[in-house]
């Protein structure tokens, strides 16, 4: 989700609420004889408001789970999650009198800080990463389907190379007859290549290209480096007849797509990895805050 002009009303409303909270807090803190206690009436209001906003922010996951419920657009919920969740942070600090507390209260403040920071990081990532993804991953696909697509790329490469069969074609190679063909198995022409060229192509495929295509995210392999890959294919072209360069071009293109998908995987892990901290800690925060509220009210 990009943070653009459409967020302005949310930002303004959140800022207004924060200003209101500050206006109430200043005289309250100045007039408190022993510092502003969380257990006072206003302190409790801040605590309840902050906790309420946390619960609202957590309800986003329910909204996503039941996307067909008519309870507002997901985008609206997302904006509310972002801005109201952020507002909960100063409200909880007002509740605590800007103290990090002790024991459970301190743990809650720590977790809240991590949740807020991870949320801000996530918002920043979601703001900038899509553009980076578009720039750096032109062959982007659906994240969940990357594994499946990479399997298809391997199968496609295997299909290309299966035509290089000494039994059937005496080291002949079937190449596409037309540029419009989608696969290698349509009308084709048999092109004879020398045994030496066929061996070089086969050797490179089995030693470098196939292992690279077979392992998702194989960043340490030579083919993972675009410059190395380009050099290797260029070298292969020098020892093979130009009649099979179309096949080599296709192999290179498959490797290029694999590299893009690996890069997309990497970027997606960054884009979504923060959720692995944000979501569990958010649930933990809600649970611990409930315990804190019960214990604090009991022993107030």
């Amino acid at each position, binding site marked *: 989700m990009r943070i653009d002009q459409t967020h302005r009303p949310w930002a303004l409303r959140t800022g207004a609420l924060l200003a209101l909270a500050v206006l109430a807090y200043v005289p309250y803190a100045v007039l408190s*004889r*022993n510092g502003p206690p*969380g257990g006072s009436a206003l302190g409790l209001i801040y605590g309840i408001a902050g906790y309420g906003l946390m619960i609202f922010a957590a309800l986003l996951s329910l909204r996503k789970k039941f996307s067909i419920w008519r309870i507002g657009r997901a985008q609206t919920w997302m904006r509310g999650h972002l801005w109201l969740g952020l507002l909960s942070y100063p409200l909880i600090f007002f509740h605590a009198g800007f103290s990090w*507390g*002790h*024991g*459970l*209260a301190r743990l809650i403040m720590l977790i809240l800080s991590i949740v807020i920071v991870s949320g801000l990081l996530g918002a920043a990532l979601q703001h900038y990463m899509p553009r980076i993804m578009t720039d750096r991953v032109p*062959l982007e*696909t*659906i994240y*969940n*389907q990357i594994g*499946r*697509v990479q399997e*298809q790329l391997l199968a*496609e490469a295997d299909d290309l190379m299966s035509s290089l069969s000494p039994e059937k074609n005496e080291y002949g190679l079937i190449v*596409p007859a037309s*540029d*419009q*063909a*989608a696969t290698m198995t349509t009308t084709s022409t048999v092109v004879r290549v020398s045994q030496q060229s066929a061996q070089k192509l086969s050797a490179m495929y089995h030693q470098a290209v196939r292992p690279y295509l077979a392992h998702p995210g194989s960043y340490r392999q030579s083919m993972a480096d675009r410059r190395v890959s380009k050099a290797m294919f260029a070298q292969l072209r020098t020892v093979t007849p130009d009649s099979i360069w*179309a096949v080599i*071009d*296709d192999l290179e*293109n*498959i490797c290029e*797509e694999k590299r893009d998908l690996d890069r997309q995987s990497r970027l997606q892990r960054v884009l*979504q990895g923060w*959720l*692995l901290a944000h*979501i*569990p*800690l958010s*649930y*933990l925060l*809600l*649970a*611990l805050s409930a*315990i*804190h509220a019960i*214990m*604090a*009210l*009991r*022993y*107030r």
Partner: protein
Amino acid sequence: MRLRTAKTLGTRHDLNYFKSFTPFRISRVVLGLAVPVFALLWLGISGKRQFYSKGPLSSAHALFADQCGVCHVSLTRGASTAGFRRPVTDEACLSCHQAPAHQPDQVFTPQCSSCHVEHRGLVSLNHVRDAQCVQCHSGLETTTGKLRYVSDIRGFNRNHPEFAPLRNNSAGPSAITFSHRVHRGDSIRGPQGAVKLQCDDCHRPEAETAGPWVYADPSTRFGAAPAGPGANLFRDSRRELMAPVTYEKHCLTCHALRFDDRFTQAIPHKAPDVVHAFVVRQFQNYIAQNPQAIHQVPAAGHKIPGATIMQPTPPRNASEWVQQNVERTEQLLWGVTCKLCHQLEFPVGEGLPRVKPSVAPARWLPNATFSHEAHSGVACESCHASAPSSEAASQILIPSIKTCQSCHNGNPANAGSAENSCFLCHQYHQWKDRIHLRGTHTIQELTGADSSR
């Protein structure tokens, strides 16, 4: 040549992909459940009650930090409450502590816990914030409508009045004639020779007055009082206030009350009737041992300066001799010796004078505490600036509040500013009204220890 068209790309994807659980989604769900569950289990198993506390207890209460029920009792005004809440009531505090009331005519009595705020770490609970005092003293009211104190005090540096003895430039109650300037001068001579008196030669805290005075004549030195049991166990014990200056301790060495060369014993520093009886007894004893003295002419050295002494008729017997000598001696005593320091009154019809009492209070500020020990690193003249030049004992030499405020102007203390909180000098509770307290808690109750171990 490979081509990537929408049609070819579309066939690549599983159209139900969103229904499947990817490793990332599985991780998210597992972590989302496992982290809170494990954390709550750990909290439940560990059983550390302190973890739920809003802060560490003060050092005085830290012993029972895990026994919340010692303070958070379900008692309100003696009755057990079965409700959810467990607040700290005054009764819980008073089960261990004395807390005499502040003033009988105060309009508002705060709860113990509102001034002595717990769960703030290893701090002293006596350190009450100024705001607690100022809430009443900034606009003081009483149930009787009569005010004995200034009604608008907002802090030591905010509208606190001058110390009461110094407010009206009035003289002190002392009836002693004494010049600090003379005694701090260079021409003072003691029994051992020239003396340059320092403040602490005469003014010392009670704990330091047991030993002999530094300038004392060896023949008149008092023996050091034996230290009582545990006298030195408490560092600040009897060191807050200066001990009163006494004649016997501080004056006698230089100002011995010798009245006649025939007697080695000095006159006791007592009331006139005791002095009179002593003088009579001395002369009676002397004439009994020296009957021929009746016919001796008195020595010329006993003349009172400026006084005209009628030559008495020669005594006819020992009784007349004693009477004449006593009269002459008492003329000297009441007219010169005693008046050197004391103010004497001669009531009509009474033979002996009355000495005005020299009532110099040990504590000038009865509603405040002060410790010289805490200020022992500061030179005396730094605070008592007018003392070295003082000519009269009636001059009140305690420092002005401005002197105190020149250091005590920080809350809390910081570089260049000592703390100026109310509690440093004032006590809320009237400790003179404290009564005996019988404790009820057991060690097992406070520590949670198993008594069978």
